[in-house]
């Protein structure tokens, strides 16, 4: 099975050189067609207030960059998101630990954790609004609540898959509980904490923005709200693109490489 996959991969490699150019050309063509249709639509199908042209949105984006707003508000949002993740790890790690080590605690936390991970983001935004009003803590709490279940579930799964033999052997060789925790449990669990953060990153970043739309005095969500209050579709679209680029860049250049590094020790899966 893996031979076949390997063979086709090697064979495919020579092909992909010319194919890659074709693909890249198609992707560019896709974007050109998209932007072309968008321009056409905003000139001919609807009025430019409803759908500003790509050029207008690009101008708006340039304004946001040069005025320094981009840096300022992304900094705020990012800081709140990171603080939220820190809180999520602080709550999710012990819960995941209990869930991974004991059947009773697993049953105890199963429902709250799955429910917390599956309810819509607006819930956390309004909860933050009730508890903190318009304050920095709101988005932090929202991020913590939405990503905590992912961290807990991943840690529990990680502990589940821990090498029981290794643990038993450590006992046989009279390693102390602390040594086992330090050299067996912690190294196993850390990558899974990260996996939880990575899985929930896009979701947390969105909930952070929703919370800021509801009530905040800075951050990306706050700027989206400002654009909405000015009835500026161009403003919303401009911030939307920054928002999306940020997620895609984080995924590609930070989270995926980091995940690969942390899970290096794992045998490669045999999927093509």
């Amino acid at each position, binding site marked *: 099975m893996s031979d076949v996959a390997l063979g086709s991969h090697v064979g495919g490699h020579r092909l992909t050189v010319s194919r890659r150019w074709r693909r890249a050309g198609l992707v560019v063509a896709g974007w050109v067609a*998209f932007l072309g249709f968008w321009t056409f639509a905003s000139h001919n199908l609807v009025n430019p207030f409803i759908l500003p042209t790509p050029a207008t949105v690009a101008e708006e984006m340039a304004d946001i960059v040069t005025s320094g707003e981009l840096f300022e508000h992304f900094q705020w949002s990012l800081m709140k998101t990171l603080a939220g993740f820190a809180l999520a790890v602080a709550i999710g790690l012990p819960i995941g630990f209990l869930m991974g080590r004991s059947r009773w605690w697993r049953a105890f936390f199963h*429902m709250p954790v799955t429910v917390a991970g599956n309810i819509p983001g607006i*819930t956390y935004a309004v909860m933050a609004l009730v508890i903190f009003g318009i304050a920095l803590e709101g988005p932090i709490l929202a991020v913590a609540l939405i990503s905590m279940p992912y961290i807990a579930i991943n840690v529990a799964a990680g502990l589940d898959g821990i090498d029981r033999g290794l643990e038993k052997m450590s006992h046989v060789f009279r390693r102390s509980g602390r040594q086992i925790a330090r050299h067996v449990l912690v190294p196993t669990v850390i990558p899974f904490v990260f996996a939880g953060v990575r899985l929930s990153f896009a979701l947390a970043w969105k909930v952070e923005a929703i919370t800021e739309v509801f009530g905040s005095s800075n951050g990306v969500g706050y700027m989206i709200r400002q654009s909405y209050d000015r009835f500026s579709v161009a403003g919303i679209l401009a911030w939307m693109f920054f928002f999306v680029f940020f997620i895609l860049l984080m995924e590609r250049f930070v989270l995926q490489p980091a995940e690969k590094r942390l899970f290096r020790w794992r045998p490669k899966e045999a999927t093509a």
Partner: protein
Amino acid sequence: MTTHVVAPRTWPLRFAASDAGAQTASVLVGLVLWQLLGMGVERIPVPSEVLSFFWEELTSGVLFAAFYNTLDGFTIGLAIALVVGIALGIAIGLSDLVRAFCNDIVLVGLAVPGVIWALLAILWYGFSWKAPVAAVALTATPFIAVNVAQGVKATSRDLIRMSRSFGVPMHKRIRHLVLPSVMDYVFAGFRFAVIMGWNAVLLAEWFGGRDGVGYQTRTFYDSNDFTGFVSWVVFFIVFIVLLDRLVLERVARRTFRWRAQPAEGGGH
């Protein structure tokens, strides 16, 4: 070592140690925490207040009317998302050309938060019924498309190749080979789309609705009535949790009971 006297495991003890006991304990602890929070924080009502408020809204008919209005837009939006998402997903999964054309745009669509679609939909359609529908459809479509595309890619290459060499026409290939094998991916995507769509419809109603659950919640928030506000939040959470746990999960289990293992669908 001290000798432990092992107590005969009577019913209450056995129950407390069982999974059901743990679940019961979890619910009880949750209620107690809520009660304490409600007594400590002035703006949060205690469970009994929410319950009596629920009864009030139920008997006056407000609850039913609001959910009816919201579900109206919600189901139309989801239906649109389902049709467009499945078509788009199959096209992306089957054709390299379509994939190169649309993949990036769908990925961008995945990353756009529901709140942006909701705000845009309101600016586009004003305070009409179309705004929540558009918000739900725009939010949910990429999730379904991505899942379906994944399912198409997971369809057995050998079967596709074989049917191609035997000259099975395209529409039959889709009908008899692709569709059955993508059904569980469609379902996984749909379940996620339901949650995302519920978020979007509430947001659209909160910012620009004239009726519905989101609008009701907003009205109580604006009039500083925190008992009403928190109660409505509880209503819409309970609704989506019940829908997910009691309906969607059961349907998934029923639909795929012929499988040895339930499929773990790709999330977002």
